[in-house]
């Protein structure tokens, strides 16, 4: 117990008599799994990386260079969701300490980040009076939100809010498809992938070019990524042109096929029951082929093929017959690809990406329903990411307790959060800030140059 904990009343949790969950935890340090304002207060007090968030959101405008825009950070909207669902929008702060103090004081259950506006959001009403509509978003990161519930029709291991390692593959696939496209196709460099805390991932594209995109341009990027169109009512939801695929889809297909055949087939047991294989047969618009397959598989029930191989085998049958060219009527040309796309291609929430004024949860928040931290994900090692091993609020507090007395700074470094914060800084924040500073310098110098030349005559 630290002095501080006794003073602010958070020492209470340590007296709890709950059963320790594993032998190594001593009762002194055990923290019951829970999410509440007291825990959060400690989290915001010691662990949440306020300074890093500030540095990020300043994009180099920290006042150290004459070219800095000192109003920049203050024009960013934050929103806080408090206990009992009180929602505070248009929060803005003109310094790091103001942001930090407000979070520590209000202890929001969720912090969202909105756009940078033309003027300080807190003063928006004053500007609305003038009628020129000068209160408007001017910058916002390009963001993507991928949620597991959008895949409920193609995952059998879990449904709804649940997530396990088997279906998490779908998120891995999403990152492996979208991330290279953002870098190679669109030329973006400063990309942050974040675990959403429960069942999905968020992507923040922070290049200056991305932040200045209009709604129409954001929309076009989202559409570029969209393949799945439809709802419960439409029959075929992925419809690829029969002739050939766009290079982006071709490249993505390599990833999809690898995971579909190497992972999803077996982990989701896509062909193991009649109900499941019928779902796939529905996607084949040729009666003679589907009856042939059906016949084959109904017979197979009696044979002794092991459960693991049944999915792989049946998929082999499907591929063979569709690619055989025996009957090649219209509509079968890309059927195999359509099936693979349906089961694995990323499903983005279009609305999140299209609008500049969309508010998205800040990284390093804690998800109220799971207690897990929204930690960054390394896209280069996303296959290793395990959502079930992400640090929880209670675990972190335990780790703080175990640490005993120490300096106030860098307490996070001695917890499981340390790895995440270090990764955030080294692979995202530092390169981003370096690039921002260069840009500020260059544009400042360009302005100087311009005013010099325009004064010379």
């Amino acid at each position, binding site marked *: 117990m630290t002095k501080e904990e006794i003073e602010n009343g958070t020492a209470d949790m340590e007296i709890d008599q709950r059963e320790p969950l594993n032998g190594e935890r001593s009762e002194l340090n055990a923290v019951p799994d829970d999410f509440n304002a007291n825990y959060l207060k400690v989290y915001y007090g010691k662990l949440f990386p306020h300074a890093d968030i500030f540095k990020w959101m300043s994009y180099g405008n920290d006042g150290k260079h004459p070219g800095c825009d000192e109003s920049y950070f203050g024009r960013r909207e934050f929103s806080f969701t408090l206990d009992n669902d009180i929602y505070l929008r248009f929060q803005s702060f003109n310094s790091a300490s103001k942001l930090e103090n407000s979070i520590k004081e209000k202890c929001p259950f969720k912090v969202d980040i909105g756009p940078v506006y033309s003027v300080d959001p807190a003063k928006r009403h004053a500007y609305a009076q003038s009628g020129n509509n000068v209160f408007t978003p001017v910058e916002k990161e390009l963001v993507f939100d991928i949620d597991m519930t959008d895949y409920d029709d193609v995952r059998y291991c879990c449904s709804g809010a649940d997530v396990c390692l088997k279906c998490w593959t779908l998120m891995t696939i999403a990152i492996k498809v979208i991330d290279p496209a953002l870098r*190679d*196709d*669109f*030329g*973006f460099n400063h990309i942050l992938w974040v675990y959403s805390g429960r069942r999905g991932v968020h992507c923040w594209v922070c290049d200056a*070019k991305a932040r200045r*995109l*209009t709604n*129409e*341009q954001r*929309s*076009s*990027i989202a*559409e*570029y990524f969209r393949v799945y169109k439809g709802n419960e009512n439409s029959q075929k939801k992925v419809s690829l*042109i029969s*002739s*050939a*695929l*766009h*290079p*982006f*889809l*071709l490249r993505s297909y390599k990833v999809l096929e690898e995971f579909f055949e190497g992972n999803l087939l077996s982990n989701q047991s896509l062909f193991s029951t009649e109900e499941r294989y019928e779902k796939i047969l529905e996607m084949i618009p040729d009666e003679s082929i589907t009856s042939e397959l059906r016949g084959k598989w109904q017979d197979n029930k009696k044979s002794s093929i092991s459960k693991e191989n049944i999915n792989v085998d049946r998929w082999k049958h499907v591929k063979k017959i569709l690619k055989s060219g025996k009957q090649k009527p219209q509509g079968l040309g890309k059927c195999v690809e359509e099936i693979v796309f349906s089961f694995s291609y990323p499903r983005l929430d279009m609305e999140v990406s299209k609008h500049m004024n969309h508010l998205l949860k800040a990284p390093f928040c804690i998800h109220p329903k799971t207690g897990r931290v929204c930690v960054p994900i390394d896209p280069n090692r996303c296959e290793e990411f395990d959502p079930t091993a992400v640090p929880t609020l209670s675990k972190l507090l335990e780790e703080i307790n175990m640490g005993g007395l120490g300096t106030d700074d860098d307490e996070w470094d001695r917890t499981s959060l340390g790895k995440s914060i270090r990764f955030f800084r080294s692979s995202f924040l530092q390169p981003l800030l370096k690039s921002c500073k260069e840009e500020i310098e260059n544009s400042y110098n360009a302005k100087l140059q311009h005013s010099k030349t325009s004064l010379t005559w």
Partner: protein
Amino acid sequence: MEIIGSQRKPVHIDVVPTLPLYRSAPPLEVRLEDFELYAMDRLRVLKGIADGLSRGKKSEEMKNLADHLWKANMRHLDASEVVNKDIISHFVLRLVYSRTEDLRKWFLSMETNLFRYRLLFERPEAQRALMAEFDLPYRAASNAELESVKEGLKQVAQSFGQPLAADVIFYKVPFEEVPELVAGRRVFIHKGYAYVAMNQVVSLVATQFRSHLSKALILTNRKWTSTIREQEKDRLTPIVEALCSSYLGPDYSQPREFAEISIKDIDQIAKSSFPLCMRHLFEKLREDHHLKHGGRMQLGLFLKGVGLKLEDALAFWKAEFSQRVGSERFDKEYAYSIRHNYGREGKRTDYTPYSCQKIITSAPGVGDHHGCPYRHFSEENLRAALGKMGLSNRAVEDVMDKVRNRHYQLACTLTFEAVHGTSCDAGINHPNQYFSDSQKVLQSKNQSTV
């Protein structure tokens, strides 16, 4: 632009690219006579384009038509004056067509089409110069660049079924500037740049042209109403106002019995009271002096229903067809079936004119003009046809909305209402009903104004 009396001074023009962009009225001097004449020549070109579109001509045909119209009307004896004529005529028509929303819409549409067709005929260097004018500083991708993305370009072309031609020019454009192409995955993108093919660029340029002109027309209208119209009331204003109404055609003002029509009135009646399907057939017949079987049946029976007597019908069809096939062949091959329609041959059944339902479910093929335009025309051609009938922007959108929802008869009803300015509660379900309702409305209007 300065309008002067009869003297002419030689004028110095700055170098302009081959296609003028009409950004601002240049400092030219124009004779009063030329003011009107140039405008009328250009109007013939625009009207020709409008006609071509409403008759359903395809892109390639339209391109050639526009070229032909331009060469036929916009020439000038003095080669150096050709560009002046182009610019002057455009600006004069701007005055004429900025004055109401319908006029602006029509002018914007036809000028943009004209621009697009002319752009397609330009040499690549000229096209690039034009792109630069619109702040579309697209750089043509170098051969080295193309080599490195060749595979991707091929795949993209294949993805919309058009194999890559050998020497297609590609432009390297920041992807932000071509959102529609990105959204549709119709371009290859690499490191933030989209590789846009020449024909895709032309569309972009035309879109820019249109948006500039649209804003300019609003400004012109303001200037016209606030200063020019009054200032010029003795000189230019009467010319401007006359140019506009002479295009729309004469008023129909004679009271008629609707039970019978005679062939001398048929052109006016077609314009005022025929539903779009019959109007289209009629105009095609006038233009081509021929109609295929489906069209002859649909129009012929309609005319019978409208009150055209057999003798008049024979004379009417003969007058048209003999220009194409000669009167002997008409008598031999076509007169019989007209008499047949009127029940004077064969079974002697008096055939009834087709209802909307029958017309909508017909299947016009190549070279046919029958059927229901609301069903069978492309959106572009239908819009042009409706515009030609005088529908406002708002009305066209309402009609198109019905069409999209496949309510073709409702679309025709809305057209009727827009054209006649009255409501048609019963709805149109027969072309002859359209005609008789129309005649009723017109008759009552004329009676009340007498």
